[in-house]
């Protein structure tokens, strides 16, 4: 069960890393964001980086659970 949850968590983290990529690249490349101005671009960049940082945190934990389920999950 623990491994299944870890795999699902890993998938969720991976999906959020894709979101991070879209947000960060969108901050520089997307026409809509450029039209809306610097605030929109900075918000996209900051939001994307934060989502990415937390996704990496979750991903790392899930990998640790998959490697050693009892040690990494505090059970």
């Amino acid at each position, binding site marked *: 069960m623990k491994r299944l949850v870890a795999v699902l*968590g890993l998938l969720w983290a991976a999906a959020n890393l894709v*979101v991070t990529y879209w947000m960060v690249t969108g901050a520089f490349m997307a026409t809509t964001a450029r039209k809306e101005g610097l605030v929109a671009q900075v918000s996209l960049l900051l939001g994307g980086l*934060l989502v990415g940082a*937390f996704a990496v*945190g*979750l991903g790392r934990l899930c990998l640790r659970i998959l490697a050693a389920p009892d040690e990494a*999950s*505090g059970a």
Partner: protein
Amino acid sequence: MNGRIGLAIAVVLTGVSAFLIQVIASQAGTAQPWGNELSDDFVFVRALPIVLGLGVAYGLVGGWARSTGRPARRGDGAIRRFSGTTIALHALLAVGFLLALPTGLWQYLGGILDAPGPLPVYLYYRIHYVGAAIILVAVTGFVTYWWMTGDRSLLIPRGDWGRHLRGFALEIPRPLGTRLARILKLDLRRPAGSSGAFTFYEKVFSFPTWGFAIGLITITGLVKLLRYAVPIPGTIIFVDSTLHVTAMVILVIRTLDHLRYTLGRWPLVVAIATGWLPPRRGHAAGAAADVAEAERSATGAGS
């Protein structure tokens, strides 16, 4: 016994509500001048009283069915952390998020990236509205349930903020904790004491940020929803939409952090699935002493 009757009442209410919403949706028909998106918006607006009413009913039934005589500790040492109603409403909230968050993100990022995505646009909105309706039911259910039961275990008592902030600073990673203590002038040499049934992190950071973000996304979402039914100035819609997106990003981050926090403390995952915090080493063992305090004050039932 009350639990089974309560569950039966909840199932009947869900069925009646689903039927009424289906009637509202079918009344919209196809012979109307709007597109699918606008039509769905109006269906959701008209279904709002039923959605909110169902949430209140869940909370009332949960509060009524909650047994006050249940033991807070099992024979094997497991401690009751959540009631059946809390587990059900938490699961409902999770389903709502699973539907509303990805579709909301796609609507936002699809607009930014100018990419329509694989599904017709109205379907993203429809799934988003279904997810939002489920979240509304769960949120109103929780608020009513807490009102009914008087449970305030996730709230910080008045006058106890200093101790909780100190406990929070001691629980988070040391570099962050010492920095926070310096900013807030907290004396980390003083012991923080017991946090009760929930950790300082959950009470000081997790629950308030969830509450803020869910409240913000609900209010701004309702304003966005009502804009076709009630005239609202464009500036307000712009600010409202910006805040809605901000709340969405906060919720995306909170979901990731919540999963990181709980998956790293497996007994908490067991507790939200079964209601019982298992008697194991690590968090559960540490929490046992904390919950003992909650046991004394609680009526023997978990939040």
